């Protein structure tokens, strides 16, 4: 069965305290659920592939048809466990390699 095209989205996390990979993964999924419901989570199939805690950049994989809706859902997230948070998408790409290359080539993401 064809699993459908996927897109990879780089996400910058602005948060007051440290955020674990599990917590971030849960939060991305629940942000899609809050906005688009259980069916949205199924169709979007968001999955945290990578999370660099030092640079606070995560890479999320999702269905190519749901990229814009994923962006909107995570952008409307403002709080995790009572602490304020902001998710800002940096770039989306069709392959993980292309996205990683972009993140390595940009000096502002090396800090």
């Amino acid at each position, binding site marked *: 069965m064809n699993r459908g095209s996927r897109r990879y989205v780089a996400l910058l996390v602005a948060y007051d305290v440290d955020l674990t990979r599990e917590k971030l993964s849960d939060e991305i999924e629940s942000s899609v659920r809050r906005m688009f419901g259980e069916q949205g989570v199924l169709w979007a199939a968001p999955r945290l592939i990578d999370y660099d805690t030092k640079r606070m950049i995560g890479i999320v994989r999702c269905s190519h048809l749901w990229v814009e809706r994923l962006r*909107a859902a995570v952008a409307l997230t403002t709080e995790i466990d009572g602490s304020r948070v902001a998710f800002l998408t*940096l770039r989306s790409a069709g392959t993980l390699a292309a996205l990683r290359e972009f993140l390595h080539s940009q000096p502002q993401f090396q800090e």
Partner: protein
Amino acid sequence: MARLATRIGLRLVGLTFDLQTPNEEKLTAAKQFEERGIETVSRIDLKPRNRNQLLMTLRKFRFRYDVVAVECSLRQLTAIAFRDQRVDLVFFSPGVSKSRLGELLPRRSERPVEVNVVDLLSDDLTAVSMPRLLRMSNLILAAQRKHLPLVISSGASDMLSMRSPRDMAAIASVFGLEDARALDAVSSIPLSIAEKNLEKHIPRYISEGVEMVRPKV
């Protein structure tokens, strides 16, 4: 904020000041962004209560700021704000009910309507923020129906309420704005407003479309 703006790739930001903000404070804020290679435009949000107050504040502050935005809460004010050439942006106070938005908007105008994403940011997407989401959706659809240009701003007052332009466009497209128009609302339309106003600082500028040309000696 300037550091985050650099990381998300912003090139130009509008800094909103109060009527009472001292000049030193404005310069310091602008310098923080300019040191990181981000251009700035100064902006003021006017919240007049009647027609005379609007005209008086426009006369007084138009030339001190690059961008002038007017908050509209009355139909009488909206009509003037959409017509006056000195106004760059029009926005509606969050207190305006969604049913009144349609009647406040004129049929056709070149003046862009602004939508602030910060008005939507709430930890709870259910009962509390539902009226706000409906209001935004209504405003976007009404502006689209009446062929009014839209500008989507973050309206951020701190780092954690900032959002990237693509995210703001994605939010607007979820609320019914066409994808291409959503991207214009965060890029070309605000850029054209800033460029139009920055042009006025050039010494040879006289008025829109008119500039002084000196023959070469």
